[in-house]
């Protein structure tokens, strides 16, 4: 870690230990677990803050009666737990995807990850993508179809073939349109400021803040 830093570290490295998983019920009785208390998947993709946000939004909707002494309605907890489980399970599949498609043969960790058992729901998604380039698309949950596509392609998982209906399009026309799309993206990117320019003009850190 230290070898990869540009300059001197600003603090001593801290070692965190974690066991990936989620609590079987994030909401039990009159206690709601939010954030790391409800579970932790992985630092990869930094999904913890999203899970905190989703839990807060769901809790606002499902917040029990404000009257002191009222028992907590277990039906509210059940729905909260159903939603939390859905979020965790979908993120879990997405994170595992990053590991299983590695190409680092001969390294025990990565060899294991490539061959480890994976959830059926992920296996199904992978098979569908390998067969025809179709990526998961769900209405509820964090990662969109585009996120799935970028990791699937980024991990160099190659679909065997494309959707046969795509055969109806004229290849030359598609190539022209894709090239046009590409050049418009390049044009849009070229006029954007650099990250440091943008920060300097928009939200530069004040020098008066004490370290």
């Amino acid at each position, binding site marked *: 870690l230290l070898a990869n830093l540009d300059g001197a570290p600003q603090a001593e490295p801290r070692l965190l230990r974690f066991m990936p998983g989620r609590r079987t019920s994030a909401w039990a009785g009159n206690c709601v677990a939010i954030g790391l208390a409800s579970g932790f998947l992985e630092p990869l993709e930094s999904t913890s803050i999203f899970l905190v946000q989703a839990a807060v939004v769901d809790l606002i909707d*499902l917040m029990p009666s404000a009257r002191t002494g009222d028992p907590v*309605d277990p039906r509210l907890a059940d729905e909260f737990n159903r939603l939390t489980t859905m979020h965790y399970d979908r993120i879990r599949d997405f994170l595992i995807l990053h590991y299983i498609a590695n190409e680092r043969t001969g390294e025990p960790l990565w060899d294991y990850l490539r061959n480890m058992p994976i959830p059926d729901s992920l296996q199904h998604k992978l*098979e569908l993508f390998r067969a*025809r380039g179709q990526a998961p698309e769900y209405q509820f949950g964090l990662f969109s179809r585009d996120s799935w596509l970028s990791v699937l392609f980024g991990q160099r998982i190659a679909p065997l073939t*494309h959707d*046969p209906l795509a055969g109806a399009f004229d290849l030359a026309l598609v190539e022209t349109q894709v090239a046009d799309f590409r050049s418009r993206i390049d044009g849009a990117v070229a006029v954007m400021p650099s990250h440091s320019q943008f920060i300097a003009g928009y939200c530069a850190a004040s020098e008066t803040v004490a370290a």
Partner: protein
Amino acid sequence: MTGAPRQIVIVGRDAALWLTASTLGEGLRPIGVQVTAVELPSSLGPASAYTTLPAIEALHGKLGIDEATLLRTTGGSFSLGWNIVRPGAAPFLLAHGAYGAPIEGGEFFPYWLKARRNGLNASFEDFSPTAMAARHGRLLIPDEETERFGRCDYAYHLPAIPYVSLLKSRAQKLGVTIRQTTAVTAERDGVSGSILSVAPEDEDPISGDLFIDASGPEAVLIGQELAVGIESWRSFFPFDRSLTARAKPFSSVPTYAEIKLAGNGWTTLVAHQSATSVVHAFSAAQQSNDQAFAAAGVAAGTNVQDPAVQAVEPGLRSAAWAANCIAIGEAACALNPLFGLDLHAVQLGIVHLLSLFPTTAAADSERSEYNRISRSHFERLRDFQAAPYALISASHVVPETLLQKLDSYRARGTIAPMEDETFTPDQWRALFIGLGLEPESWPPAIDQMPPEMMKEGFRRILGFVSAKVLAQPTQDNYLAEIGAGIGA
């Protein structure tokens, strides 16, 4: 065959057959796939009509079926939803549109619920332009303002026989090969079990790569040939018979279907230009066919004729796609007749097949995804249909997923988000509210809004609804205006 299928053979009847044949003909012709339709005798009678859902408009668009032509040639009409009537309670409209609009960016329903608890007079449907237009005998033609307000959709009531012949002629024009027969036999591969060909009676076999069973409950391929079983939904639905008849058309055609719920059955009046189709669902143990016919007449308030009785056996084919055979429509899922969702189930099957059109002969990934996604959609439709039964009589078994919905709705008024829903949260709430089920609480966070601001929100919405509804045409006027009247 090693690659994508080249020859598709559809065996079936009526709308399931012709909607599938025409849509596949249109969608697959560009990639050189040949579609053959083997037509079995129709099970439709002169009284049969389809109720559609708004999604059908897009499919008609792909098929080049123009709306005015559709309604004129079939004698069909527009429909904004269902008016649901039950003894001892106010009727309510289950509409194809939004109920309310956000107040200060917050969801409408909890505010309405709170105000209602505090004495607000306006009912939930008063806040829906679509429901109110229907209530006042008008249509609701979507425009920029309604677009900004929220969903304002419509569907159709289509007399079945002319609709089916319209679809059949589209299929013909789109290059579908048509064969007619009274029965088929199939030849299968001894090893894989796949269907190799189907033979119409006294004719040469038609070979294919992919076979579609659109034969309805008979399920000639998926059931009789491949022996794929059915998971019964009988315990969720009490009625096992449905009677269809017709009455004379209304002098002024309503813009909704009317469902009359009663203890021993329900009756739906599906009004269109050429007649009013009457569907009566009942239990053979409680009513004879003659009694059902009489009940249908009473519910229709006039003489009914051309009765036909069908057995209703709700259930889901355990796999809609098995080997190289795909069941579409009732062969895949026999829904309860409430709300008349059969045509929509056909559309779901077709859309899923097109989005998963196989890349290989084995089609293993496509098959498992198709079965997963079909089941999920059909189960959500089932839950919506099962809700009135569950709420009116406590004696039925309720599907687990519907129980979850009912629990969180009763506790808080939320509609538990689930994938693959056909009906919107507004429609679920309109159904629950209409059936007398009020949530016990609302999110405490909404108590922060000052009452004046909430009232202002209600006034604004009610003002919009009444102005919009007043500006709408009646069904008859609009049909005449677009050249869709049968007298035109």
